[in-house]
């Protein structure tokens, strides 16, 4: 039995324009020691997936389908049971280390809180354990820092504290939602290396959410590309990045600035004048406007009428690699720079 099994998950949110599906047909499994990434732009359903797994969906959200942790159904779990689960079996690292910590409490107290709550440790034992955790996330001068407040730490140090809190009770599943987006590039690398190392040592399952394709390539074994609440492509990271089977995945890659881009372009010759990034026309649809068919149809260069008829089925394009696209294998028009 896999650690986490998500099957045909559908999440419906109440928006100002009526009920709208934020997630559709999301299915995946994640086992201990495995790493899975979620890629996509804002509004594609990455964070809603994370919140669903944490039982933290907004008020009025409806969940259909199933999410099972070690075989236990989560989608119907009462809030009291969620409280026992959250922070103990499933833990989350949030994007903003500035706002994820309580500015009024010392970091020692914040790390000790789940230990006392979930594991019933005494104040002294929790404090000793908090120190060990701070050392484990390699916070310099950990012993002196136990009584420090969040504002006395830098962004990278705060994110280490957030990770220490997440790890406190030895969770089986770690959900990290853009854990390094607010950090400098060198700090980002350190924090990602730390998460990778801890996941490996503890044999946790890692669900990493990021819009940064490079971060994904470095960190996770498998990725799922999301668009309009749908997993449009998934597979082993290197296969997905090599094949780029879905037009959206391809568009994401083409739009990304890359070092040496203007030298690589034919006629670029190192002169940046006239060198433009390829763009995906249009923008991410609002949830309430999602069409019945493929959500990417309106922006797709190779769309045909059938794409709008209904959700495209997942087509296998390689071992463990599939794409929800009727046009897999159809060559895209040369990705020209937008004027």
């Amino acid at each position, binding site marked *: 039995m896999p650690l986490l099994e998500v099957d045909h998950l559908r999440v419906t949110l109440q928006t100002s324009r009526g009920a709208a599906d934020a997630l559709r047909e999301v299915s995946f499994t994640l086992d201990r020691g495995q790493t899975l990434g979620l890629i996509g732009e*804002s509004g594609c359903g990455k964070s809603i997936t994370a919140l669903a797994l944490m039982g933290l969906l907004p008020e009025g959200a409806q969940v259909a389908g199933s999410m099972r942790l070690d075989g236990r159904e989560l989608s119907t779990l009462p809030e009291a049971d969620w409280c026992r689960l959250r922070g103990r079996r499933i833990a989350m690292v949030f994007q903003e280390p500035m706002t994820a910590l309580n500015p009024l409490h010392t970091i020692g107290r914040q790390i000790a809180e789940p230990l006392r709550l979930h594991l019933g440790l005494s104040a002294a034992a929790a404090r000793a354990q908090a120190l060990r955790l701070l050392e484990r996330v390699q916070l310099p001068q950990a012993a002196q820092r136990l009584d420090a407040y969040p504002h006395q730490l830098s962004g990278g140090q705060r994110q280490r504290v957030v990770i220490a809190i997440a790890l406190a009770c030895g969770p089986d599943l770690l959900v990290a939602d853009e854990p390094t987006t607010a950090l*400098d*590039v060198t700090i980002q*690398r350190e924090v990602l290396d730390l998460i990778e190392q801890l996941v490996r040592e503890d044999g946790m399952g890692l669900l990493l959410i990021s819009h940064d*394709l490079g971060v994904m*390539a*470095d960190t996770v074994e498998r990725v799922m590309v999301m668009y309009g609440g749908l997993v449009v492509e998934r597979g082993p990271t290197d296969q997905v990045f090599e094949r780029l089977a879905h037009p959206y995945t391809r568009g994401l890659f083409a*739009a990304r*600035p890359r070092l040496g881009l203007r030298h690589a372009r034919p006629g670029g010759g190192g002169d*940046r004048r006239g060198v433009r990034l390829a763009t995906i026309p249009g923008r991410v649809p609002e949830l309430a406007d999602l069409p019945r068919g493929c959500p990417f149809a309106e922006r797709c260069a190779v769309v045909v009428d059938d794409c709008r008829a209904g959700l495209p089925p997942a087509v296998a394009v390689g071992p463990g690699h599939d794409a929800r696209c009727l046009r897999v294998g159809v060559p895209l028009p040369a990705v020209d720079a937008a004027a």
Partner: protein
Amino acid sequence: MTAPLLGVENVSKRYRLPRERLLAAPPEVQALDGVSFTLQAGRSLGVVGESGSGKSTLARLVMALEAPTSGQVRLEGEDLHALPPAELRRRRSALQMVFQDPYGSLDPRRTVLQTVAEPLAVLLGAGRAEQRERAAEVLDAVGLRAADLAKYPHEFSGGQRQRIAIARALVTRPKLIVADEPVSALDVSVQAQVLNLMQSLQDRFGVTYLFISHDLAVVDLVCDEVIVLSEGRIVEQGDPGALFTRPQHPYTQRLLAAVPGMKPRVRGSPALAQNLPQRPSQPT
């Protein structure tokens, strides 16, 4: 020879930190230390470095929002910080800024027209009709419609808001636009649209950019020159192509090595190498 559009000469800035003890002198931090560079009209200069390296301090000094502790910031040869206040005020229309967060940099209670036309009224004393006309003109230039003038920021997406912020910066027909992480808060596909827009506006109007970013690939794409700041000093400067291919300073090498997608696992896969950024060949 005409003076460069922007000349920064040996600029230093020290900030006084809050007092830690009652009787001790307050500690100081050296945010910039002897920074010099020039920027010719119509070109783009990238400034890269980590948080705390002095990037934003440099932006504030160039925008004449703060005075340097020592050194000079010259706009077309004139020392901005030596100008009388009334004169400086007149010069401000030549300097505009685009901020990182398009959600925080637009007033939610003001329409696009009020936001975009405000610099015209404040800096140039333009009348209503002229304000409206020029605001519509710049909105068109950034790919929005004149009908959007009556709308409020919340009616726009992040990318559109950043277009509004760019329109506000363009409306006074500035010579220099300081862009402080203008695309860091945007999604990949939106980021590409905004970067392309900034480049075509430069081709059309000849604006000069001081482009601050922690993203080396973005700077490589849009800038003619780049300076690398570390702890308030320029540690390396030059053409981005050369600088990012053969970084000389250890700090630049460290920045480059940390760019995601450059780990050995990825580098080893030949297929991936086509899609992900190449690691520039390092000097041995």
